[in-house]
């Protein structure tokens, strides 16, 4: 549940020297912190922790029906144990679940890969550009600021039978019908909205790389591609990993876009969130909670695996406020930078 915790524990708290003084005369700091943090933690407990736990409980119940033994209609919910879960994986609705599971996974992998490639490309272009920076920064925020629902309607309009997309490609594709075309429309719309956001985060990472590193590499005769692979990638890896992680978790819960762009009850684009919503909408809270819990576990596993395997340092930015210094130190000889920053694997490097 608290996936990023291990990373937090590994990392020594790198506080400025003044903290020693503060610690000495503030014996009750822990107590004070607890008091000051309590409103936030209380609210998060109420709106996050409590629902998660009651979803777990809820997923073990089913709405009352006719009791098979007595013949009476039972009031309230009946405890059914893990029936809702076994129904998900093996019952009549198993096909629908696996389809939604596949769609969710497919969307996540495809969108995140596309968005990462496009986002990194955008960041590299913006980093090289000296003119028009303000314009590009403003325009890159526009897709981010547009509500997902509005962007879904916008793309639905573009993907109309006699809309702009068909006019451009000169063919009559019925985008909103079942099949690859509706999947493609969702992927295109999602990529449009979020690739610039990844670009923004990666650009911030790029800007922390000191120029001397590149100059040293040039002196050593590194080609442009070598510079990208050996310096840029490893050094933006921390920023990139966090961006990718957040995009993945966001796409795993994707709902608005397929729901509005294509519509509910479409096998091609139904995701786990849509499935759970549909069950809840039809007042089948037990199964809905079970779907929601499965999605929750899926998200948690992905987040945990991502943090563990790739070493995405999610809280690093806030925990250690000296990224520049650290990066400089780590990457002083440019070739060594490929070893990766704080990562457990050299995913971006050699």
């Amino acid at each position: 549940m608290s996936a990023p915790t291990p990373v937090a524990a590994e990392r020594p708290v790198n506080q400025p020297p003044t903290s020693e003084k503060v610690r000495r005369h503030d014996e009750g700091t822990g107590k004070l912190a607890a008091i000051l943090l309590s409103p936030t933690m209380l609210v998060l407990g109420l709106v996050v922790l409590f629902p998660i736990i009651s979803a777990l409980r809820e997923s073990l119940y089913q709405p009352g029906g006719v009791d098979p033994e007595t013949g009476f209609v039972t009031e309230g919910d009946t405890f059914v144990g893990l029936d809702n879960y076994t129904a998900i994986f093996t019952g009549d609705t198993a096909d629908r679940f696996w389809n939604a599971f596949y769609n969710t996974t497919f969307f996540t992998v495809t969108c995140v890969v596309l968005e990462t490639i496009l986002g990194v490309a955008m960041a590299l272009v913006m980093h090289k550009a000296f003119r028009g920076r303000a314009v590009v920064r403003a325009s890159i925020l526009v897709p981010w600021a547009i509500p997902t629902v509005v962007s879904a309607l916008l793309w639905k309009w573009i993907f109309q039978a006699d809309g702009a997309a068909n006019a451009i490609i000169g063919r009559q594709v019925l985008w909103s019908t079942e099949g690859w075309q509706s999947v493609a429309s969702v992927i295109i719309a999602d990529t449009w909205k979020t690739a610039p956001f990844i670009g923004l985060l990666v650009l911030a990472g790029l800007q922390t790389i000191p120029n001397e590193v590149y100059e040293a590499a040039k002196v050593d005769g590194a080609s442009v591609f070598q510079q990208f692979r050996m310096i840029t990638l490893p050094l933006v890896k921390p920023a990139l990993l966090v961006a990718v992680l957040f995009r993945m978790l966001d796409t795993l819960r994707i709902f608005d876009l397929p729901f509005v762009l294509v519509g509910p009850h479409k096998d091609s684009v139904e995701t786990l969130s849509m499935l759970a919503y549909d069950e809840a909408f039809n007042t089948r809270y037990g199964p809905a909670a079970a779907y929601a819990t499965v999605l929750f576990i899926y998200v948690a596993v992905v987040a945990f695996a991502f943090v563990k395997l790739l070493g995405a340092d999610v809280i690093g930015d806030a925990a250690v406020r000296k990224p520049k210094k650290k990066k400089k130190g780590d990457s002083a000889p440019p070739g060594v930078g490929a070893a990766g920053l704080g990562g457990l694997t050299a995913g971006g490097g050699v």
Partner: protein
Amino acid sequence: MATTIRAEAGPLRRYAPLLGVALIVLYCLLPFYWMMVSAFRRPSDQFDNSIIPRPFSFDNIKDVFKEGTGFGRGLANSLLVAGTVTILTLVIGLVAAYTLARLDFRGKNLVLAIIITTSMFPGISLIVPLLKLFIDIKWINTYQAMIVPSLSFALPLAVWTLTSFFRQMPRELEQAAMVDGCTPAQAFRKVILPLAAPGVFTTAIITFIAAWNEFLIALTMVQVKEKQTANVIISQFTGAAGRDQPFGSQMAAGVIVTIPLVIAVLLFQRRIVAGLTAGGVK
């Protein structure tokens, strides 16, 4: 240094980044431009694919506000819900963010991890149980049924962004204030808070945009038109025209919902980018 090196390079080297920038701008703005164009067409030539609306018309915009669409009310509802979420979040999150940025206590990283983790939870796994709870306590079709669940994503976002902002402020500020006789609380209120105003303001914008764009909670918790937010209303537009999906008025409504955000983005782009990248969170 690098600037001069690049400036001396050939025309391709010089103009390639500019071309790239132009491509990015087109990529980001073209679909949005298409929405504007479609909004200002006459409903009768809605399916015209010309690049500029000719003749220019406000009919779609007028249609959006026609009686029975509930769009005006929806805008007010959106403003109310997103505004309340933003204010609540800032009030609750400000103290927590300052604590996380300044106090050194055991388990700080754990608290940070918990806060960041809560923002990763899929909305639907919170909404299903909350829906049932709200039915029981008769909260369905109320504003608080939209506001309270929205805190689940807004609060971590705000705390995270604010913490990054507070961290960027030198500790010497409070120390100087305390040397001058301020209590820590006074130092926070009289020195830090005014200086942190830009960061707080940025966080407010980011939180407001996130809350304004929320859809799933509003869709689930409210079924009556008078309480629905603009996003839900637009998605369920039947329009005046009838059977066909009223794309013209939907685009017009989309423009109306988006324009305030785009203006805010244009005005405060530098700060928003700073806030987004400092938090590293959407």
